[in-house]
């Protein structure tokens, strides 16, 4: 079998291509991250709080801000490929479309999810959180943002044929992501209070696996319908 046609090759080259594109367009990569830091920093200004309150609301607030800044990046997931015509090539390529959508989703998570995860222990300092609490927060965000990418990929594919879709996209994706928010933030709070936080990890892990099982296929179907 020709090695250029293998599924693994299709996956890796799509991921590489997206990373390369983002390297050429750094502002697009950095802006959501800056927004995440800025909003997290401005929250303690707006609310009059003492130290102990800050570390209590910290996990929830950081989770919400992470989801919001993450939602802003979603509308670009397939938009550029639609604009420059690459999407048509993906639809026509011999690679199975779900593999390509999964590769794009994975690349999107690496480019917009992981940076948030890496920066959040530093943001947690704003909220006077302990180091181990903030590491647990980062761990929940790692799984959580991946699940968000998977769900968001469906939303991005569905709203591709509408104009000015970023608000509509948030409207569609937010209700579905509430379970991750509940358990993501709650896991950290449980850990802070000295309880076991394993059950929360099980839940977001299960949710992530569940999303993984259908997201690439549903996104592919939505892209096909949208391009008819």
């Amino acid at each position, binding site marked *: 079998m020709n090695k250029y046609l293998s599924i693994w090759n299709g996956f890796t080259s799509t991921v590489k291509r997206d990373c390369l594109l983002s390297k050429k367009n750094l502002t697009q990569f950095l802006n959501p991250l800056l927004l995440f830091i800025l909003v997290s920093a401005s929250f303690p200004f707006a609310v009059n709080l003492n130290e102990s309150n800050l570390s209590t609301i910290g996990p929830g607030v950081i989770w919400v801000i992470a989801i919001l800044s993450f939602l802003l990046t979603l509308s670009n997931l397939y938009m550029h490929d639609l604009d420059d015509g690459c999407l048509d090539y993906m639809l026509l390529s011999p690679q199975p479309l779900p593999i390509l959508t999964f590769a794009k989703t994975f690349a999107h998570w690496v480019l917009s999810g992981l940076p948030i995860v890496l920066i959040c222990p530093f943001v947690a300092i704003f909220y006077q959180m302990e180091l181990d609490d903030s590491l647990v927060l980062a761990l929940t965000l790692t799984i959580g943002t991946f699940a968000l990418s998977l769900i968001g990929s469906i939303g991005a594919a*569905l709203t591709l*044929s509408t104009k000015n879709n970023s608000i*509509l996209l948030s409207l569609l994706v937010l209700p*579905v992501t509430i*379970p991750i928010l509940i358990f993501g933030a709650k896991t950290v709070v449980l850990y802070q209070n000295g309880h076991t936080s394993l059950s929360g990890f099980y*839940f977001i892990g299960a949710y992530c696996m569940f999303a993984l099982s259908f997201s690439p296929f549903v996104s592919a179907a939505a892209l096909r*319908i949208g391009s008819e």
Partner: protein
Amino acid sequence: MMKFIHKLASPPHFYSISSVLIPWLAITGLILILFGVVNGLFFAPPDYQQGDAYRIIYVHVPAAYISMMTYTLMAISSAIALIWRIKLANAITVSAAPLGAWFTFLALVTGSIWGKPMWGTWWEWGDPRLTSELLMLFLYFGYMALHASIVDEKKADQLSSILILVGAINVPVIHYSVEWWSSLHQTSTLLKIDGPSIATSMLIPLLSTIFGTTLYFLSLLMIRTRSEVIMRQKNTKWVKDLIKGVQNA
């Protein structure tokens, strides 16, 4: 049987059959609602714990039940539309959405009015049914927003059907995720293994309003679907004949 279903799925047949069914459904539904409401408000005994305040159950439970039934119905008709490309199924999904959103809203409002004297608050974040019902309202809004924002009708139908199905597999997840919070909402009195735990004098009006509201809902859905079908098929021969018939009469 299959032949009958095939026949029903064709828009002209649906149009003629529904014109016979609608008055029957609407009248029976309204009679049942009237019977249930009058009995429930005036003749059923007051609850030993909640006094007369429980009587809002005769509005709240049917509304909440229909809000969930509508979503299920939309999911089924979306699946039928995506798999078998039956045009009528799309028309049903589109016409059901605003009704579903309205009954969800009604369930939230009546629930909140009931909550004020019973729990002492209009809104309680700790309650799973309240929050998952609110999220369901957002799912309805999302569906309507997506359908409205895609210009091409066929694309709009198919893409928003996908959204409904994704929402449908997520509704249980959303429900159980919020259920893990401690709950204030009383548990169901009707759906129990050892029979309903409610006095017969209260149960009969409740069942009567539930069935009545369902029939009323179905008649509304049929009226909306009929106009949707005519809008969608305005260039076909049978609609043109129909309009000619109306003009000549």
